[in-house]
């Protein structure tokens, strides 16, 4: 039962656990009866990878609980027996966060798919973690409400996965990320204990543990219920499509809009290659003779949209825009977005495979980062197309490669790693919204030193004393909690523990 994980080191499988596989399966079948335990190799195949299909690994066994009690019992059993656990939502992770381990129980949360309560008087909804992101908005649409974060994969990705990755989307410039829109969770710890963090109220009465659970990539516990904030849908939304001769001009336009006091609902940018790919795919009338295209969306009362559209138009014209189209109907606005939202599959048609990167940079560094990326593109002999959440500096370079061409996957991965190092070098970060997972794990030391990472690992130990939750993800080192917790006080100097590497 080996997997395919080229170039990726995963924690060494625990042979004692592998040897007890049949016994573990039997124990799990007692906790989750019926068809809730999947142990046959053929039936486990669909779970062998997530959105990062380059990495594949069959799990020890798949379990599909349907109640909090079952999740608690499974985790308690795994804790008592020192068995690793990998949580999984819809498996759309773009960082390999749900990649199975050979010796780990994969816990699929797909059966937690109900909207439990819609509470418009408190403007919130209580849902199970397997409800899709879009499913929440659909459930409250008839009441005029929606859930604001809108990752591109929103048809498929689940709110539980969004909590794990602190997902964003194109509208988070104005409406925030998952962390700003989730009010509470029910969390099962690896010990099987159940804690509730937050609820229908705001802020924490003690330490704000919800803050670290959101974006923790399944390393702290398993979320079994989520309370989300609902917003009233804006009366109107209008978009403007602006083409620029250079990315510098487009970047300057974004800086002036925001510096001038306007926070649009979204500002997206695409470079020439991404524009061409998207236009060929959906044919919505994007200009093909520009280096950079901005989609700026404004929402709110009609009077506000009209007023701000004038302002944005004026700013754009002052930044050498060469084409400018304001949406005059809802169909046209959706058309503007159709190209952007199809950018990934559109680029996918240009090439057998592509790698989607996810760094964030201070916005003004964009022209420099783009020019360095062009140099790297030549160096590696691989094309790259760029889509960019320009409002908040989140960059998604798409590296085109052919997995069947010898060496290209390695080259693409090295190219991607160079881009992320570049993001950190200019003051940015390795990942804006896709998570570290296994994909960016080994780059963590470019952003954090050993002390920074040790502090993060100690926090993990407070939740997971045996390091059983999703090991091999996020952190480049495995660790023993006892060793991390040790503190030597001598002569005022504290030696930092050396962490074993795998």
């Amino acid at each position, binding site marked *: 039962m080996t997997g395919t994980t080229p170039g990726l080191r995963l924690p060494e499988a625990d042979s004692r656990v592998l040897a007890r596989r049949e016994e573990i399966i039997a124990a799990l079948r007692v906790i989750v009866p019926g068809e809730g335990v999947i142990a046959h190799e053929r039936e486990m195949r669909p779970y062998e990878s997530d959105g990062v299909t380059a990495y594949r690994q069959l799990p020890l066994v798949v379990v599909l609980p349907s109640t909090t009690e079952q999740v608690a019992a499974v985790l308690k059993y795994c804790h008592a027996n020192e068995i690793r656990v990998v949580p999984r939502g819809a498996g759309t992770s773009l960082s390999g966060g749900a990649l199975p381990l050979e010796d780990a129980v994969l816990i699929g949360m797909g059966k937690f798919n109900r909207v439990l309560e819609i509470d418009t*008087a*408190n*403007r919130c909804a209580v849902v199970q973690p397997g409800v899709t992101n879009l499913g929440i908005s659909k459930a409250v649409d008839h009441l005029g409400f929606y859930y604001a974060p809108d990752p591109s994969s929103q048809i498929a990705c689940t709110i539980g996965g969004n909590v794990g990755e*602190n997902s964003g989307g194109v509208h*988070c410039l104005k409406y*925030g990320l998952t962390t700003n829109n989730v009010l509470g969770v029910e969390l099962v710890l690896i010990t099987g204990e*159940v*804690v509730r*963090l937050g*609820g*229908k*109220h*705001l*802020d924490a*009465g*003690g*330490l*704000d*543990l919800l*803050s*670290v659970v959101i*974006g*923790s*990539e399944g390393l702290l516990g398993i979320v079994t219920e989520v309370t989300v904030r609902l917003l*009233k*849908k*804006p009366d109107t939304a209008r978009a403007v499509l602006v083409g620029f001769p250079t990315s510098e001009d487009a970047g300057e336009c974004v800086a002036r809009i925001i510096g*001038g*006091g*306007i926070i649009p609902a979204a500002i997206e940018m695409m470079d020439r290659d991404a524009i061409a790919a998207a236009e060929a795919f959906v044919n919505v009338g994007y200009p093909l003779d520009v280096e950079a295209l901005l989609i700026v969306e404004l929402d*709110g*009362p009609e*009077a*506000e949209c009209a007023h*701000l559209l004038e302002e944005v138009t004026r700013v754009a014209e002052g930044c050498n825009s060469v084409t400018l189209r304001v949406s005059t109907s809802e169909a046209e606005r959706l058309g503007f977005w159709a190209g952007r939202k199809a950018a990934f599959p559109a680029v996918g048609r240009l090439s057998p495979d592509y790698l989607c990167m996810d760094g*964030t940079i*201070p*916005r003004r560094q964009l022209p420099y980062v783009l020019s360095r990326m062009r140099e790297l593109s030549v160096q590696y002999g691989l094309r790259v197309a760029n889509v960019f959440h320009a409002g908040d*500096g*989140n960059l998604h370079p798409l590296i085109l490669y052919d997995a069947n061409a010898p060496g290209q996957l390695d080259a693409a991965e090295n190219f991607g790693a160079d881009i992320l190092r570049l993001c950190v070098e200019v*003051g940015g*970060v390795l990942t*804006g919204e896709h998570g*570290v997972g296994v994909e960016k794990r080994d780059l*963590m030391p470019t*952003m*954090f030193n050993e*002390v*920074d990472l040790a*502090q*993060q690992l*100690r*926090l*993990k130990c407070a*939740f997971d004393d045996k390091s059983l939750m999703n090991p091999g993800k996020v952190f480049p080192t495995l660790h023993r909690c006892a060793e991390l*917790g040790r503190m030597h*006080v001598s002569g*005022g100097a*504290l030696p*930092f523990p050396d962490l074993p590497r795998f």
Partner: protein
Amino acid sequence: MSDIIAVRDEQEVAEAVRTALGAGKTLEVRGHGSQQALGRPSQTDLTLDLSALSGVTLYEPEELVLSARAGTPRADIEEMVAARGQMLAFEPMDTGPLLGGTAGRGTLGGLFAVNLAGPRRISHGAVRDHALGIKAVSGRGEPFKSGGRVVKNVTGYDLPRLMAGAFGTLSIATEITLKVLPRPPMEETVIARVASPGEAAAALSAAMGSSCEVSGAAFLPEGVAGRLPGLSGAPAVVALRMEGVAPSVTARRAMLLKVLAGIGPAEVLETEPSRPLWQAVRDVIPFAGSGERAVWRLSTQPKVGPELAAKLVQDLGGEAYCDWAGGLIWLCLPGEASHADTVRAALAPYGGHATLIRASAAERARSAVFQPLDGALAALTKRVKESFDPGLVLNPGRMHAGM
């Protein structure tokens, strides 16, 4: 009075913590000392004074980001961003007036440590929602960093948000990076009379459930309302703020007046009377200057807030009002006794938390100042504290006894 160690940079903070660790001493972490009366009174051996660790290190208005050292006066920061037409959107409470001090003091580290957001919490979030990055020194005496200077960032656990509101019990933040936002050019507040707390809850809910983008929503009962600027002599009202560009505010005001049509007569406050009103709501001015009468801050589900506030006043006396569309109750009791069990028992059916914000030191020692934690959550919280501060050196006991 404990010995004071004044520090000027991160290295000195780290040395001070190591020294304390080595000597088995505890540290109180302090900026201007304007919030010393917040939290449980704790006896520490040493006081670490961060007020000299001051200065804005980065401000890029077009990037909506600002970094400053922990001891930087908040007033300096607010002035600096205002000069560029920006603001700290979470409207941090100035605790000076309520706690018997003066207004306008306090540091960035202090407002970060207490996470007391003002009226705009409902639309823009709290301090924690705007915390992007930190440099800090742990209770192990080790400098570390977390987060960054960009808004979208999931690289590692979100320690800046965890440390916001931790009252300096996890680590000592030495530099904090915040998201800043454009300050709206104008605002208006619609004031509508309400006949009862139930009607207030309905009005707040209707306003928040509309697309008027309300950024301040308070229930101000008779008596409390009369002590707020711009409302003198007013009966019980709800106040609803809208901010933005003029055409938008005008359109939303018209929309909101329609939403409130079934409720009592309404009037509109323009920008100038509106701004001081919300600042007074933020700083709990109606309960300032009332000595050591116990003041509670309750966070609960918004729809029950006005009636819960009324019930608490009925049972215990005193006065109360609601911010955050009903979700935040400010309760001022008639005397120094905090009646913690009664307050928390009344809150329990609805969920949330109650914090004793103002009380005598004796009362804060006697009662649980922060919401008591139950079994598994208490144990988890203690483990998290110890993961940063295993020797319980930093502000021990400030939030919970024994941590």
